[in-house]
């Protein structure tokens, strides 16, 4: 069975295609959403999920979160005594999801379809595949998140033919995709986005504002306090989605600081962020050669689109209301499961075919002669495969060396949109051997072929001789080699993971600890009492007693915080 996984910046989910529709899989604590957070406790092992997220506020030096943003960079992260790559942290999350799926479905799971932001570049995608392989998955396909959302809505849709605009604002990434659905064909027309814009940035805005109003500098607070302030900012941001003002209390060193923010002030603070949302939308529409009137449905995906700021912006841009029927947090995972079902050639999906596009322009560097033969402009980007062309695609053109008499024609291959190569991402270099000809310049025909799995093949043909040489760019430098991946896979197997049965208890204790930090006086005392009660119950090792104690404590917590902030 192939599963579909949404590996998000804030939350991750796993789903599978059931009898005739995709179904989400619960994790050890009974939620569909597993926060992408990892806690490293030498004694008990690695803890993933809500527990780790709570421990982020109490033991920030041993916990990591939001590492999706660092996928594809070389940054090693230190948690406690150990160092981890972001790929390994993602692998921990994936492993925990794998265990959840195996428990629910009752069979070993090996194949998966994993979602990535449409605007992830080549390096980031390879890092995601590496993370999955370290976790023991065989990645059948990477699916773009907005495409997954559209797949989920597509099954859900009543009409047979429509053009969608999917706006996906997740925790850390922003994607826009335009899709067309007709007669069971799901065709991506254009894709755009910003890989460094997400709900977390909006939370950061609130956090900075609070810091300023409390009178601290940007890093004036010690780590633990800053973590708690940020968690409070997150809660307030979510409250603002349902009410025009939100209040919270920040506890530090025995004093309570009340903090408040209104929706209008929030919109003002985040103006720069909302401005960054508009450009990719406009670009996607113009790339698809459509007008806003030709778009039938506008779909909002991703938890951050719950903010009224975003839905207002959409209404302003398109002069009509967007739709968000399905739960924006679940949609991507459900879509990934649909893709998994398509790969399995599931009976219910036999009629559907999907085509995708490459979101970045691929090309190489050239120089241009200006006025005289020695007046050159170098470093110009010559695109060969334009962005938003349907893949698989193959394009070629002829290039000439600057001067005759050379033996090689050297080009560097880039991915990006800027007119000069220094602003684009280099993904490889290529030397075409050309015959020695002192009199004329030997032309070379360069052909780029880009396939559905994202492998770029470069073919260079010397026009006069017809000799062909090939370069396959499968692995970008800086990416993990298969041996490395295997190595880390075995290393991971050896790392102790918190036993699944005890995750619920660990989560509750973490939650209690977090709440303890956040309260004062009488409430603090009560929490402390519950903590002690629960730990006593744990010591009895009697399942039923532990269950009863847990339920009682959870009820108390519900009553205390009003509503569950992380729902």
């Amino acid at each position, binding site marked *: 069975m192939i599963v579909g996984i949404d590996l998000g910046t804030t939350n991750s989910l796993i789903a599978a295609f059931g009898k005739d529709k995709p179904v989400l899989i619960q994790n050890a604590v009974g939620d569909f959403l597993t926060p992408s957070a990892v806690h490293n406790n030498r004694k008990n092992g690695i803890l993933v999920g809500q527990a780790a997220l709570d421990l982020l506020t109490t*033991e*920030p*030096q041993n*916990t*990591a979160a*939001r590492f999706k943003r*660092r996928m594809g*960079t070389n940054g090693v*992260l*230190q*948690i*406690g005594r150990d160092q981890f790559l972001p790929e390994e942290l993602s692998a921990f999350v994936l492993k925990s999801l794998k265990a959840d799926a195996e428990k629910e479905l009752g069979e070993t799971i090996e194949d998966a379809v994993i979602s990535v932001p449409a605007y992830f570049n080549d*390096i980031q995608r390879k890092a995601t595949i590496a993370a999955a392989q370290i976790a023991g998955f065989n990645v059948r396909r990477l699916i773009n998140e907005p495409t997954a959302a559209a797949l989920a809505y597509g099954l859900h849709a009543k009409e047979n*033919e429509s053009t969608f605009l999917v706006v996906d604002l997740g925790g850390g990434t922003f994607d826009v995709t335009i899709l067309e659905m*007709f*007669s*069971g*064909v799901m065709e991506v027309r254009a894709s755009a986005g910003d890989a460094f814009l997400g709900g977390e940035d909006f939370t950061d805005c609130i956090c900075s504002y609070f810091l300023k109003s409390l009178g601290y500098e*940007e890093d004036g607070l010690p*780590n*633990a306090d*800053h*973590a708690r302030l940020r968690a409070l900012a997150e809660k307030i941001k979510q409250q603002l989605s349902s009410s025009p003002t939100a209040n919270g209390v920040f506890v530090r060193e025995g004093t309570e600081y009340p903090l408040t923010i209104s929706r209008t002030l929030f919109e003002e603070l985040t103006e720069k962020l909302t*401005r960054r949302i508009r*450009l990719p*939308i*406009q*670009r996607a*529409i*113009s*790339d698809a050669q459509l*007008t*806003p009137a030709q778009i039938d449905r506008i779909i909002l995906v991703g938890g951050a689109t719950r903010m009224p700021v975003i839905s207002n912006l959409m209404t*302003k*841009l*398109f*002069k009509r209301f967007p739709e968000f029927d399905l739960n924006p947090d679940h949609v991507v995972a459900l879509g990934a499961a649909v893709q998994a079902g398509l790969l399995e050639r599931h009976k219910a999906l036999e009629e559907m075919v999907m*085509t995708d596009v490459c979101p970045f322009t691929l090309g190489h560097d050239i120089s241009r002669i*200006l*006025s005289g033969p020695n007046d050159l402009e170098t470093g110009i*980007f010559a*695109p060969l495969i*334009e962005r938003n062309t*349907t893949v*698989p695609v*193959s394009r070629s053109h002829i290039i000439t060396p600057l001067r005759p008499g050379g033996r090689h024609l050297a080009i560097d291959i880039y991915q990006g*949109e*800027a*007119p*000069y190569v*220094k*602003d*684009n*991402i*280099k993904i490889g270099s290529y030397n075409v051997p050309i015959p020695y000809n002192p009199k004329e310049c030997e032309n070379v025909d360069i052909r780029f072929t880009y*396939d*559905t799995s994202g492998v770029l093949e470069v073919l260079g043909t010397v026009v006069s001789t017809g000799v062909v040489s090939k370069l396959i760019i499968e692995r*970008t*430098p*800086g990416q993990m080699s298969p041996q490395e991946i295997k190595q880390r896979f075995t290393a991971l197997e050896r790392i102790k993971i918190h036993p699944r049965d005890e995750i619920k208890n660990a989560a509750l204790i973490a939650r209690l600890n977090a709440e303890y930090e956040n309260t004062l006086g009488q409430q603090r005392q009560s929490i402390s009492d519950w903590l002690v009660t629960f730990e006593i119950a744990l010591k009895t090792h009697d399942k039923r007693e532990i269950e009863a104690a847990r339920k009682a404590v959870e009820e108390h917590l519900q009553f205390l915080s009003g509503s569950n902030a992380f729902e």
Partner: protein
Amino acid sequence: MPLNDSYDTLGLVRDSATSKTVRLAYAKKLKTIRPEDDPEGFMVLRTAYETVRREIQWQEQDLARNATKTDVDSQSESTKSQQTPKPDSDIDLGRAAHFNQELKAWLPADALGHLVEHIVRWVVEENASQPKQFFATLNEHAAFTDTDNTQKLTRKLSDYFINWVANAADIFDDYGALADVSNIKKPKWLTDEAIIAFYEYFQWFPQDAQESWEARQINALAALFEPVLLAHNVISEPLQRIDADELEALEITQQNQDDFGSYFNRQTRKWVDQSPVGCAVQDAQALVDRDSGAGILGAWEEIIEREALQPIDEFQSLSQRLLELICHETGFGNREQPKTPIPNWLTGPVLRRLDNQFGWSSQNVAHHWQRSQSNWFSLLFAPYKSASKSVDLFHPNIHVNIKSYAFLGYQPMPIWLKATTLFFMYIAYRIALPIVIAASHG
């Protein structure tokens, strides 16, 4: 790929394809030629689909555009396929008629054509001699005896003939009929006698015109005939002119009208664009003309942040037009590179703000013309751009602000545990220890 091959690949017949059928054909073929299983076949299919889709799109756009033209034109389109023009249809010169090279006249393909030819031959070969007698005999011509509606026929004849006279007298220049006809060389058959005869028989003046070009033509002829008729006392007052400018303004306004009341101003002979985008572009032009740097950032911001310009349509249109304006005003098309220093109305902060808003320097567009404009803007912007965050995989330059992530628990290694420190300690140990031992022994 040749167009016909594309149609064959999709399995369509060329003239009967609509955008819907094209889609269905593509979808059907796609079920068997899947991209994962047969990449080459898929590429061929996809190219065919895109070619055909584009062509059908243009065709449909053309049809839609023609449907909004005025009645005359659309009717003339419909008469294209007919053999003879319907008697009730308005004059459509050139559609149902053929052009006779010898006489240089448009002759409709029926009895009316014979009539026109008859008259034209009389004018050209006999120099319009004895016009009164000629017109008297005209009423016995076959065309008049055959038809029921002589009035209509006369009217149509008059329309054809006036066009021929206008062409033959050469009262046109590149833009249409001349306003001032005093300098033209009158053809030799256009004698005073002929003019008077034409005037009396055809009753061309006064007349109404439906379109501005007709109006101008009539005005030009009136100017031509007037002096002769006044001199011979055929008429006592000057001939009435038709207000061609008014008609023209009305036509252009109707064709390009939008919801904001944009119109064609006949005095300045310019289109007055009152849509939000048009106003914004005009205000931007005013900033350029003002050419001062004072408060320029605020002025630009005021323009681009207007509420009415936020929706996607307006935003896109504004982006294109502002880029064009800026390129034009900084010498795009006339020079290789922008002239330094940059003009007053385009300071560094202004460039940054515009780039932030529209993304001109970082978004390559497929369209060739817009791409060269974007490149031009990048050249302008380059000195003012903040350092580019490029990613070179061979020399990664990832700047992570350690402090901002510190609260997440990312702490740097303690200094005594760092590899370099340990290395130097080891070297020191290996060097120092023998020295110490030697010293203690010695």
